């Protein structure tokens, strides 16, 4: 039975990884989760310099999901390389570094800095950051801005580049095509849906940032639709995420067209979520007589 998949020449022992920002750098969960078993570890977004992030409260629960407005707090690329990346060198798994920035230059700086880091298998460019250039329009919601940043990153990147798309758009196929046209090696989706919650007793927004990103099982049906649309719009591989909790959910994304999948907020609920997915996929393949996981990728059309 083969559960191995390949994305842009990088081999994954299985298609299951964490969604950026929900698993730290792996360190935080390493006491409870055997990192060697994961297809990859996707790190929390890292910028060229340390970021403070947003004021608290930054997280809140919603029906079958949660909202966050962390604001991409991170210690900056130097600390990341010295500490987190060094830690990850002890593990036999791919490392995908999630990159954020306020301007194209910020992104490029991080990408260049990581060029010679052997432990970095791929780069994931988070273009759904709040507060970026372009008059407040995130790179992730305008195809032209997306092309521009993709080209700039690709020009300097030594590792394959995954562009992470925002779901807050009218047309996912247009965004996926823009990324592909600009040279992206792969795309991942979905990031969180912009959302809001009000505390009616305090007459205030629950999150200090007013809005936050919605994730979790609640949004899974939207994510599956977008992964399906995206993977039918482009030829480059798609990494699917959004509300994955169980192996069934992971398989749903694979069948919709994703070559690999990421588990996000459900890691918070159950630290074994990714391991459960990996084991559950194997069980499903055995029960249904599937020899190679590639047989199920994109099998529903």
């Amino acid at each position, binding site marked *: 039975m083969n559960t191995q998949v390949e994305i842009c020449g990088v081999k994954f022992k299985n298609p299951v990884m964490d969604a950026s*920002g929900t698993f730290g750098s792996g360190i*935080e969960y390493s006491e409870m989760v055997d990192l060697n078993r994961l297809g990859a570890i996707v790190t929390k977004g890292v910028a060229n310099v*340390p970021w403070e*992030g947003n004021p*608290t409260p930054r997280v*809140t629960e919603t029906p*079958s999901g949660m909202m966050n407005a962390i604001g991409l707090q991170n210690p900056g690329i130097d600390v990341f390389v010295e500490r987190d990346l060094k830690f990850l060198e002890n593990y036999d798994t791919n490392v995908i570094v999630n990159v954020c920035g306020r301007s194209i230059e910020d992104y490029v700086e991080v990408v260049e800095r990581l060029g010679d880091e052997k432990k970095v298998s791929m780069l994931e460019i988070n273009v759904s950051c709040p507060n970026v250039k372009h008059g407040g329009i995130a790179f992730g919601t305008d195809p032209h801005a997306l092309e521009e940043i993709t080209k700039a990153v690709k020009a300097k990147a030594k590792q394959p580049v995954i562009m992470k798309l925002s779901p807050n758009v009218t047309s996912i196929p247009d965004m996926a095509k823009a990324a592909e046209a600009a040279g992206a090696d792969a795309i991942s989706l979905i990031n969180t849906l912009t959302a809001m919650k009000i505390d009616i007793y305090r007459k205030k927004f629950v999150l200090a940032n007013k809005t936050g990103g919605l994730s979790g*099982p609640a949004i899974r049906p939207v994510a599956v639709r977008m992964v399906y649309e995206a993977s039918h719009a482009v030829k480059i591989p798609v990494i699917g995420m959004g509300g994955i909790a169980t192996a069934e959910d992971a398989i749903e994304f694979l069948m919709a067209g994703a070559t690999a999948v990421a588990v996000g*907020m459900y890691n*918070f609920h159950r630290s074994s979520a990714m391991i459960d997915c990996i084991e559950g996929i194997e069980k499903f393949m055995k029960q249904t007589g599937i020899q190679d996981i590639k047989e199920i990728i994109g099998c529903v059309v």
Partner: protein
Amino acid sequence: MIQGLAVVKKSERLADGIYSIWLDTEIAKTAMPGQFVMVNTHSDAHLLGRPISISDIRKEAGQIRLVFRVVGYGSRELSEAKVGDSFELMGPMGNGFPVDKLSPETKVLLMGGGIGAPPLLGLANKLKKYGVEQVSAVLGYRGETGGLFLAEDFKKFANVYIATDDGSSGTHGTVVDAVRENDIQADIIFACGPMPMLSAIKKLAAEKGISAYISLEERMACGVGACLGCVVKTKKVDGHSHVNNSRICTEGPVFEAEEVEI
């Protein structure tokens, strides 16, 4: 740290809306006063763990005690727990109270407001074992409507002073008022309670030149330091985050008062 099922061994109502449960869990082995657990609900619609302090620990029996106020879905579910029911727990989390620095001569002052009192009970218990002899506890309550839950338990370990919002028992006012009224002396304060109380304690400690360790609360998603949801602004750049934000779940929940901007 582990995540697994914990079985309810005892469940009781301490006061209006205040409950106590003892749980069988491996977490007891390594738990320390001031640490907390994340409790999962049984509902697929409520997916974030609920952070609850470990109020007391029976290491040998492998049990921990949680004392909590019913405020929403998760705490209500927990309050309805029957002996034999099981809950998914993750823990122990956080740093706990720094008891290592104490010597038998240290004058310790415990200050707990409302549902902030329970976590100090396990600490009081431990202080006794450590041989610390001069322990005062100032416990703040709403008053008649809420009951003086756990006050009796504290008497086993400390000189207990009470403050109530309505003046029905002890000092009419806050725990800080009670400290002044009774002129309580201390070398170190351990406190837990609502934010305004902790701010007042920070001021009190600065004024008296004693160190105060306070246990903070914030909305949490992961509880293990991965999501960066639960930070507090700090005076110095935090060693982990490299910004002036520390994770309450990991670097805390107990902080030296003067280190945090509250």
